[in-house]
């Protein structure tokens, strides 16, 4: 591990709204690990899903603006918790490598672009810059007994030539961090499947089917909770779990944590700092189950 770095932090729109608990838990965990997150001043929307479907130079300009501000503030690395923001920021960085393309973007932004900072997800920063072993050192209340399945979603690691992080089919970064936090990680075969993404607005039936399969498979593996790294995935799995249940005729109640929330719990950070109350499926039952299980195992080991 290198000495803790300073990162330009890009929360993204959802971080201030629908996934507030992801944002605050990320900040809390990074602070606990000694990382300095400096918010990009006056950041704007990354373009999200709509911009690049309309115009690539426009979409790139939106993200490049944020990167440019970070660069001017003298920050060499931008980090964001949201994989969708990550895609746009990274793609923008790649696009402006092309001189022609760069010119178009510079016209839109009324000025020349400096050398843009490197972009990585918070997950990558935790896994690569900090490292699972250092994370383990910070654990005060290990998540012993908690059986989790890590769900990365379809874009955290893909396309590999853009994201350049972990294995596009079998990522392990989150698994390793969860293991470091003391949880039992159950291999989840659908860890990079699509949850239906923003089709939740237009085609609820599609999302219900896709998330339903994720939840059903996870339940079949006997997990206590799902762990995510994407605001949209979390929303589909958590908020829409009842819709999925209705579509599939199932009755699953599986809490869907952000991995930062679970890390925070393991670091013994206060619940308010992790936004556990914002989760739709109440996580406390799962946490209790885990505690009991841990207790039972301990008793069994002692009597054995």
């Amino acid at each position, binding site marked *: 591990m290198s000495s803790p770095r300073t990162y330009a932090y890009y929360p993204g729109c959802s971080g201030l709204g629908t996934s507030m608990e992801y944002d605050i838990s990320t900040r809390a965990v990074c602070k606990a690990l000694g990382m300095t997150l400096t918010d990009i001043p006056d950041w704007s929307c990354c373009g999200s899903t709509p911009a690049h479907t309309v115009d690539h130079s426009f979409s790139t300009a939106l993200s490049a603006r944020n990167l440019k501000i970070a660069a001017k503030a003298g920050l060499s690395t931008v980090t964001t918790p949201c994989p969708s923001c990550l895609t746009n920021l990274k793609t923008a960085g790649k696009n402006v490598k092309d001189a022609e393309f760069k010119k178009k973007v510079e016209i839109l932004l009324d000025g020349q672009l400096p050398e843009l900072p490197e972009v990585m997800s918070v997950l990558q920063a935790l896994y690569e810059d900090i490292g699972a072993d250092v994370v383990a050192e910070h654990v005060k209340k290990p998540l012993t007994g908690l059986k989790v399945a890590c769900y990365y979603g379809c874009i955290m690691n893909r396309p590999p030539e853009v994201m350049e992080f972990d294995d*596009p089919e079998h990522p392990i970064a989150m698994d390793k961090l969860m293991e470091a936090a003391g949880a039992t990680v159950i291999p989840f075969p659908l860890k990079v499947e699509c949850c239906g993404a923003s089709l939740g607005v237009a085609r609820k039936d599609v999302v219900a089917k896709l998330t339903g399969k994720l939840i059903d498979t996870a339940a079949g593996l006997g997990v206590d909770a799902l762990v995510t790294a994407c605001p949209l995935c979390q929303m589909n799995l958590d908020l829409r779990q009842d819709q999925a249940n209705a579509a599939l005729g199932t009755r699953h109640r599986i809490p869907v944590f952000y991995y930062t929330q679970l890390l925070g719990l393991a670091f013994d950070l206060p619940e308010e700092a992790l936004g556990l109350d914002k989760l739709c499926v109440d996580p406390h039952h799962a946490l209790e189950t885990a505690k009991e299980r841990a207790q039972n195992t301990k008793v069994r080991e002692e009597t054995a």
Partner: protein
Amino acid sequence: MKIGVFVCHCGSNIAGAVDPAKVAESARALPDVVIATDTLYACSEPGQQGIIDAVKEYELDGVVVASCTPRMHEATFRRAVERAGINRYMFEMANIREHVSWIGKDKEANTNKAAELVGMAVEKLRRDRPLIPKQFDINKRVMIIGGGVAGIQAALDCADGGLEVILVEKTSSIGGKMAKLDKTFPTVDCSSCILGPRMVDVAQHPNITLYAYSEIESISGYVGNFQANIRKKTTYVDWELCTGCGLCMEKCPSKKSTDHFNEKVGVTTAINIPFPQAIPKKAVIDAEFCTKLIKGKCGVCAKVCPSKAIKYEMEDEVVTENVGAVVVATGFDLFDYSVYGEYGAGKYPDVITSLQYERLLSASGPTGGHIKRPSDGKEPKNIVFIQCVGSRDKSVDRPYCSGFCCMYTAKQAILTKDHIPDSQSYVFYMDIRSPGKMYDEFTRRAMEEYGARYIRGRVAMVYPKGEKYIVRGADTLMGTTAEIEADLVVLAVGAEAAKGSPQLAEKLRISYDKYGFFMEGHPKLKPVETNTAGVYLAGACQGPKDIPSSVAQGSAAAAKVLGLFSKDKLESDPQVSHVEIKRCVGCGKCVETCPFGAVKLVDFRGMPKAEVIETVCQGCGICAVTCPQGAIQLEHFTDNQILAEVNALCRS
């Protein structure tokens, strides 16, 4: 000197982008040219006859033909001028097709360039002198590298033709990939039943010397006179004494050795004979697993061996064989499927390769021919075959079609139904490629008679669900996604070049393509030759091939060798280096640079002088450019000739 120039139209190949008549006209102004004309097809019979007639009519001393690449027709025209009564080296060729008409569209510029190339050829020809090839003896023995079905066929055909054959096989038994197959398409006949007798023939043929468990260390020499060093790898068993009784295998306590013959399905003993029909049927110790070799303890095999054949202290041995021709039949390797992470091969025990499945089907395989899931030994009912794993996929650098996977998958679907009548096979495919004799009928039978369900589309993902696996892919004919619950998933892996192919190619001085497959002399007209005289190809080392094609090429290679050896002497190419002894100062630079070891220093009246071994010289010219004195010259490509060409170009 009287020179004739013939400018070929090559139909529209040249005439479409060059004006041959104008090129001929400009040639008439060149020194010594007494006739220049254009001709529709110079290589055709009337074309060649035209050249011959002109040689006689104008009493020509030399001929220039401006046409296609010398690689295609230089030999043709040299024979023609020889028929006309002049020396075959009094001929020059200007390549105005590949170098002109095929690469430029501007007819005027092309015509000028063609005229310049002709001018260069004429200037070179003016300085040509007749060369007479020397004759040398041939060693009429042939070495065949690789003992798969192609190598076996080539070996038997050569041996039956009366030649002495050296067969070199790197594993401990011949038979190759075919020996691992259960049945073969499209006849569904037992693979080892048709191959086994051929393997026995190899062992018993008086003309065949078999080096099993051996590899080519190095090879030198030239057509007719190769010298090969063969490394006989350590077997730790004296094969002279070993009778193949198998007692050592029975008693060996180390029973966790990798079973390479069974494609790592199951394990074997540290000392083993790979399979019951192995030729030679001799034991080999796997040093990686042998307790005696690792820890120095055990020695059970030595104790039980009735013929005292075990030799723990054995070491590699290198033997030298002299041969006149080489047939390369090193075959292929299977594509490493683990790059397809989404299929979970190597991670999920019941996702296996087609060749592993073949071993499960085989009566001599690890399960005695009963299809059992590797994970729990249960009989699978739903079996999904995924085609094109490592074929036709640019993303894994295998854009080529492996050719035989469609067929063996159909065969395995048929055999599955035979083994487990209440089973259901599903085949995810991209296209069905079954162009051989009785092939399409065969795949249709798999679908229509055996009820295999073919789904057109790539598989996106395989993941476990309980005891089963969900195989999800596109059904591009239905326009939907398909999800199949499978008990067993078989990946129809494609073919890639055998490991170490480029290294072997370097030793043999033959070409290979970007995937490591060996290159034939000409893709259509020289399918078994290489660009190195006396080295021939057979089987899948040239590209993926099925058994019939491999056997056919094995026989073709044998025919080529027999044809080569039907002459008692070969002619050496006289375009070799020549040392001007007065100019040579004996510095030895040429000796150092010659890649073929064709130049040596000799004592000439107390002075060291370079001497060229003409039969070894390949005419590459490296020595000529190295010599500081200009004392060594390449015949037919002397400094004077090349400078004359350059001057001709600069003048125009």
